[in-house]
């Protein structure tokens, strides 16, 4: 049965080449855009180098004070003191990676300016996050305690600063006119892993600002790692309980900080605040946007499909006259439309690969490498099925309503 439908579908596609072209153009283009967007979302949302343990991690990246009476609000990153004094006491936190926001500094090599974004980190940073060391090793607690001026640099910085020199371990790199001894080189981190990407990593003890100042706001953020995936909710609960003990600063009556799973930590930053993680809002807005985007190609496809069905009214009339039920016809037409959609999908995949190749080549976002993996293909498949169904149902319904006598008479 399916084989027959397939044959009919191919025959119909061959008959009116112009319509086939228009349908395939619309489908493949729409799917290409969906696929490239999915590839981008996948890059941002699924575990990516060096942050590979997202399932076991919670992210703390903001501190918010509120005065509900006056409507004041103050929001910033978190202080080192908050992590070392409060968060480190939590029993469910196995390890904690603390790092400061990247700060830009300049270096001048051979009369060329290099911008170096550097971060201060603790020793566990290297245990929680899986940076790939191309040479050397990370700094340990010992270097932190001694406040040694040592640095781990990225591959990109190595190239920009030292040129083609093969071994840079033990050499010195100057930032803000301070010389740091290079002890490790790590592979570049994509800019999409915003809070972890940097050009140079330094022990927090060499920082010029007072990291032990008992403030809640500061320039740091942290990744909290639980022992197992099952411990994550416990860790989150413990964090919330701890927040109740944190003293509320003067002039305010609320203090918020949250340990969020990765996705909520992003949505909170985009659309939420201390009390609301913004997840529903972001998901709703994104879905509305995708649906609106799909609307035009869908209407177009429905329009063309209806036209094509009317063209085949004699065939349908004959089949109906010989006793085919409406259900069979609807089924046949939806299958035909699915075949068309999947053909479009295949072209779409080829176009997406091309688009991804171009985007990666142009380095639109620093060090971001998009890829077509199984997750992306799976979502693309779902998009194909969805698209095929919604653009096929209305024309099929119109077809099944066709009056046999009229259909046969007009030809």
């Amino acid at each position, binding site marked *: 049965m399916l084989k027959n439908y397939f044959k009919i579908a191919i025959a119909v596609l061959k008959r009116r080449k*112009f*319509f086939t*072209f*228009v349908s395939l*153009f*619309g489908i493949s*283009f729409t799917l290409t*855009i969906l696929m490239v967007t999915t590839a981008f979302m996948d890059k941002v949302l699924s575990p990516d180098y060096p942050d590979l343990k997202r399932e076991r991690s919670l992210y703390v990246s903001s501190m918010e004070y509120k005065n509900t009476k006056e409507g004041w609000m103050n929001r910033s990153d978190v202080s080192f003191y908050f992590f070392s004094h409060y968060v480190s006491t939590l029993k469910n936190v196995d390890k904690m990676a603390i790092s400061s926001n990247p*700060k*830009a*500094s*300049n270096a*001048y090599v051979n*009369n*060329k*300016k290099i*911008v170096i974004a550097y971060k201060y980190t603790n020793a566990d940073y290297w245990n929680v996050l899986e940076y790939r060391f191309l040479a050397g090793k990370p700094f340990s607690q010992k270097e932190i305690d001694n406040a040694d001026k040592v640095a781990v640099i990225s591959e990109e910085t190595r190239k920009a600063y030292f040129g083609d020199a093969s071994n840079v371990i033990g050499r010195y790199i100057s930032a*803000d*006119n301070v010389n740091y001894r290079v002890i490790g080189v790590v592979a570049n981190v994509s800019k999409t892993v915003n809070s972890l990407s940097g050009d140079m990593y330094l022990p927090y003890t060499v920082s*010029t*600002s*007072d990291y032990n100042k008992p403030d809640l706001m500061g320039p740091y953020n942290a990744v909290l790692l639980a022992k197992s995936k099952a411990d994550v909710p416990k860790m989150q609960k413990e964090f919330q309980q701890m927040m109740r003990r944190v003293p509320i600063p003067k002039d305010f009556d609320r203090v918020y900080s949250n340990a969020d799973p990765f996705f909520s930590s992003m949505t909170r930053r985009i659309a939420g605040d201390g009390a609301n993680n913004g997840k529903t809002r972001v998901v709703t807005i994104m879905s509305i946007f995708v649906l609106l*985007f799909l*609307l*035009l*190609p869908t*209407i*177009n*496809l*429905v*329009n*063309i499909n*209806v*036209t094509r069905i*009317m*063209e085949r009214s004699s065939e349908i009339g004959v089949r109906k006259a010989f006793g085919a039920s409406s259900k069979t016809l609807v089924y046949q037409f939806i299958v035909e439309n699915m075949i068309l959609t999947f053909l479009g999908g295949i072209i779409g995949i080829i176009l997406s690969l091309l688009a991804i190749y171009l985007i990666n080549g142009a380095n*639109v976002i620093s060090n971001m490498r998009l890829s077509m993996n199984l997750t992306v293909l799976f979502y693309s498949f779902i998009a194909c099925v969805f698209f095929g169904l919604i653009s096929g149902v209305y024309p099929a319904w119109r077809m099944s309503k066709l009056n046999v006598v009229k259909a046969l008479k007009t030809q």
Partner: protein
Amino acid sequence: MMFRHLFKLIWNKRKQNFLFLSEILVSFMVIFAVFSFLTFYYQNYSKPLGFDYKKVWSISYDNGLLTKNRDSLNIFYDNLYKSLKAMPQIEEVTYTGANFPYSNSTMSTGLNSNGKKFNPVNSYVVGADYQKVWNIKLVAGRWFLPEDAVTKNKNFIINETLKKQMFGEGDAIGKLIGDYDDKEKMKIIGVVQDIKANGDFWPAGNAMFTRLDTGYFRNNSHILVKVRDGADATFESQLYKFMTNTMKNSVEIQHLSEMRDAKNEVTIIPMVIFIIIASFLIINVALGLFGVLWYNINKRRSEIGLRRAIGASGSSVSLQLVMEAMILATMSLMVGCFFAIQFPLLSVFNIPASVYIVAMLLSILFIYLLVFACSLYPGKQAAGIHPAIALHEE
């Protein structure tokens, strides 16, 4: 007469035409969105920039290790200003708040004038030579003078947009304006030309400039310098070394021309992606319309043949078909305009009504052109139908 007849024809086939109508309606909305953006950006782009960024560098530094003593800090900044100014490659130097043009920082406040509140107003805290560094043009009044430090009412300067909003064509100089909660009065001493601080494609908005007084130095962490032609990377690295030695802390030097490019890119890149997607959607729709019209004409061969047989000319037949498509487009556009006109009426996003009106007119023109282009070839084909052949088929 002809329109009524055509209208009847369309009405009889309203069911078939429903999809056609909705497709044009949705296309119109997409095009309206694109043209709204483009018109908005173009209107802002065509306004003058209002300042010179080309040879300006910004120096940002961490002020954490500087003395907290107010008097020593004053002396420190005084000396720093003199040392920078003494460098042969530097023409002008000024201290500034964090929200100088093209920086990603904003600071806004509200003002009260004659019981009316103006909010938000971009608030720039500026050093004495700020005007010289940027080459900002005064429209009326004067720039800050050293004696402004000791006046009874705080003196400040506003931009043209804010002046027009507050006083229309009237004079602004010497007027007293209430601050955010209307507790203190400040005196306007000058009006400057608008400066497009957020890049070429965004309006200047309301802006006010206040003098950076010595109390502000505690928070200050930005210096702007205007360099001379000879300033190259060698000089920049010397300047950098000098600054890090002075501050004993982190320092970053940026060129305003690069910051401007980065700022403009934030507008241009999403717009280019949007235009690419929209144009593919429109190509898609155009092909679809073309196909459907073409098919419809083939289906109406006998009707067209009959008209030709009783004496209608080829051109009148093709005119009929093009007109039919245009009337369909008009029906969709009427519905579309009903939605589109809500934007200027409700002044959505606080954008001037003229942007939406221009965008609407452009979109209407675009849709008519699109439908016309798509129906032209099918119409021509219909004109070529030979009555004898068409009627013979029946």
